């Protein structure tokens, strides 16, 4: 590990300025649970690390009629300990609860998890299911990207040099809605998703029919993605095993997994269907209250 510069600006403008004008490799740091490991093991050689945790905009956590605003550097524990998020945006609460162990959750942020653009990131399928928008600040101002458009490949995203994620914005939750994120891991703890599925459903007042649904899949392609066909198949359909199995089959049909040390192509494909079914059922249960 080489020496590097460390800055901890207190304003968004300063942070963007530092990152934009850096000539070497500059990396933003939120929780640091991935970044520090990367620097320590030499996968990343940084010249400048800009700590974002002192910037108020990145620590926003606001839930009201307009929806949820989640600052990019808010640590996981603040998310899963928030009763409103647990109730209305359960999927992101589920994700925050299983990223790393407790020490990691005290530091790691959902914004950082998204920015890393890992195919197996635990929060991204939940963000996709909950239809989050990514608010980005950079040298040429602020822009907004739908979360399912944010990752572009393994470890790659739409951020331009000098840009950082400021916050994630979630639309308000309709009545009779529920969401869930679940992953498959070979152990029961301390593991990384072999398949991850996030789903959000909106039911009608009877609770017997899907109004709409969104399914996000992780660890089964080069990047987490929105399973559009599977999601749309549920809209207007009755809540029953057959409908859910159809959606699961549609999800299974769109994955492009690899075989690696975490799982085989066959396994990931099959388990995508299994988890999609289980996750939709749990989301329905939550929507029904």
């Amino acid at each position, binding site marked *: *590990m*080489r*020496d590097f510069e460390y800055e901890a600006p207190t304003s968004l403008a300063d942070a963007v300025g530092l990152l934009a004008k850096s000539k070497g490799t500059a990396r933003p740091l939120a929780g640091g649970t991935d970044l520090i490991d990367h620097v320590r*093991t*030499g996968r990343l050689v940084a010249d400048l690390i800009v700590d974002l945790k002192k910037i108020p905009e990145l620590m926003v956590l606001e839930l009201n009629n307009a929806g949820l605003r989640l600052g990019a550097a808010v640590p996981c524990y603040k998310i899963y300990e928030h009763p409103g998020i647990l109730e209305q945006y359960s999927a992101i609460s589920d994700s925050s609860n299983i990223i790393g162990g407790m020490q990691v959750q005290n530091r790691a942020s959902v914004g950082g998890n998204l920015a890393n653009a890992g195919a197996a990131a635990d929060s991204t399928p939940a963000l996709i299911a909950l239809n989050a928008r990514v608010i980005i600040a950079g040298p040429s101002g602020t822009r907004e990207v739908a979360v399912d458009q944010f990752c572009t490949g393994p470890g790659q995203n739409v951020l331009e040099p000098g840009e950082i994620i400021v916050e994630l914005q979630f639309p308000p939750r309709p009545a009779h809605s529920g969401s869930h994120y679940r992953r*498959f891991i*070979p*152990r*029961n*703890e*301390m*593991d*990384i998703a*072999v398949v991850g599925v996030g789903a959000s459903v909106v039911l009608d007042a009877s609770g017997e029919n899907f109004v709409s649904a969104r399914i996000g899949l992780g660890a089964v392609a080069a990047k987490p993605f929105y399973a559009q066909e599977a999601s749309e198949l549920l809209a207007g359909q009755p809540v029953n095993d057959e409908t859910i199995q159809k959606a699961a089959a549609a999800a299974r049909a769109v994955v492009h997994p690899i075989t*690696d*040390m*975490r*799982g*085989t192509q*066959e*396994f990931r494909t*099959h*388990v995508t269907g*299994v988890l999609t079914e289980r996750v939709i059922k749990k989301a329905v249960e939550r929507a029904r209250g």
Partner: protein
Amino acid sequence: MATIDEVKAAEGSDEAPKYKVIGTRPIRHDGADKVTGRALYGADIKIKGMIFGAILRSPHAHANIKSIDTSKAEALPGVRAVATSADLPEPGDKIAELGEGAVVLNHLSSNNLARTKVLYKGHAVAAVAADNLHIAQEAASLIEVEYEVLPPVMDVLKAMSSDAPVLNPDVRTEEASTGEKGDKPTNVAKHIVFEKGDIEKGFADAKYVVEREFRTSTVHQGYIEPHVATVLWNNDGQITVWTPTQGTFSVRSQMAELLHVPLARVKVVPAEIGGGFGGKISVYLAPAAAVLSRKAGVPVQIVMDRADVLQATGPTPGSFIRIKMGVDADGRLTAAEAWMAYEAGGYPGSPIGAGAMCVFSCYDIPNGRVEGYDVCVNKPRTNAYRAPGATNAAFATETVVDELCEKLGMEPVEFRLLNASKEGTRRIDGVTYPRVGLVETLEAIKNSDHYKTPLTGKNQGRGIGSGFWFNAGLKSAVTVTVNTDGSVSLLEGSTDIGGSRTGIAMQFAEAMGLAAEDIKPAVVDTDSVGYTDVTGGSRVTYATGWAAYEAAQDLKRQIVARAAELWDVDPAQVSYEDGHVIGPDKSVCFKEIAMELSTTGEPLIARGVSNHNEPGGAFGTHLVDVEVDPDTGKVDILRYTAAQDCGTAIHPAYVEGQIQGGAVQGIGWGLNEEYWYDETGSMRNANFLDYRIPTCYDLPMIDAIIVEVPNPGHPYGVRGVGEVPIVPPPAALEAAIYDAVGVRLYELPMSPPRVLHELLKKES
């Protein structure tokens, strides 16, 4: 969890306890330091003036080294020394006995710093010492190595084929029975054959024959503490090594051989050790640190990171095993045949010999044949891991046994009781068992609450497996000093990886009629105690315990002689019993006589040594309940009971700890642990995230049943304990998975993708 003792106590046994100290559970002497974080482990060692080393490792699995240019590293400010294999003496073709078997010095030396070839990814190529670790690492990255990359040989069967690239040009196939060597370079370093009876007749007499092929993956011991060595090569030529190791004297021998210095010039100081399991016997860092220290003139410390530990130390081999077994209509085994190939890693030396001896060790089989091969592949040089070679073998044999039981419609416990090895059984490799306790472990399982409680849930299953390990004797030495107040300091050379300090002190205390707390045991350096072999082979409580027993006899003789002199009586009229020296007209307790003797004569010092090799083989039988998720292939363990013949349990809590720890490692090996290689021969999961050791969330409480069949070959009946419990778990889990969901797994680990694959295959 109840031990046999507690069960007996609860049942109101009127049998008087045989021992006063043995069988009790005193607090361990090293406990306070360990639970408060004060214990000094390898990386806690800080020596004045110490600098830090880093190792440059091969990025290739198999390559010739064409050149190494260290000039840029040497020029980096802060760098104090650079070393390559050129700095180690030419090892020649010497074979040395280094604590755990014979070692070809050229291989050991080249494993520490590669000479002409690199044989696995992570193979050490050069070393740098610098003012701090970051400079050392930066400098290592500046060393330019020109490689000629060769095709990696990763599969044991492919490595055996005649057209496979050969890793070591000096390796010839050695016939184990004759010692004769082949005439062509090969990857097959050894060929073993054991035979008994008439195998063709045996299979002809069988009603059912099952033959299966098995594969197991390379797995690592997974100790928490990475390897570390701190070495000072002093100006006067004295070398001091501070390191956590299973064998200080083995490290001393390795250093002396590799550096061509006399043994007396090397002192090895043991740090506390954060796990070893067989993997902390070979040296990996100390020779390089020594050379760097000689060059730099100051102590050098090198610490591995986790990736180094997994990629460049000594895991246990992956294997290919074919097993064929036959039974008659009554369920008696008539014949068994095994063909086993173990991956040695880059250099020869897999535990194929032990595997071949263990493969049918649990059964009385009239006709058998075992063939074994030690095969080099481009993976790290394998090393001992808890009952080395036995777990692979038991997985294969016990799975075939489970299938035979199914064909016979016989309860697996009953089948094992009928065919179990017992006193007088002759193993296929020729050894005849003394009194052993396999039957007793089977009966203990049969009588357990676990066995008597049926499973009721869907997708749940139960499996059983047995296992064996030889245990070892070898040499140990103990020195005892009686202090002037009657307290006792006990010096030993067995580094303590499982509570052995206390187990040894207890045996000494028992022999002297003292309390365990009266004895202060200390594990000391190689200058401070007599030669002691490695902490391995489950030998320490047996052999160093015996040395402590002998030291007690020595001390008692001295006390009796000197008391007789003091009291002016015939020594024949004086005896030592139950903590007292007894004369014709008086009885004085140990403390009093110790104080008196200290003030009236020379210091009271005793010694004990042992070199006995009747450690008594030990057996274990495990019972496990699992639930399998039929949609994902994930196996959850519901309940686990392990019964083991431990001989006399000196400290039952540590015995239970060993059984539990071994079972957990076996469970990890069975379900998820594996070296996952890509096509270039690069291990892709060299970290504890993707090399999946079970966590406490993945395990139920392991119920340990201590079965005590005393070893007739030890004063207190001790058998080794530590290794047996890793042997049965994969086999027991396999049987349980089959019982739960009806698929057989012939490959380890039985990870969710493998189980699901079999489930999907069965469905279609």
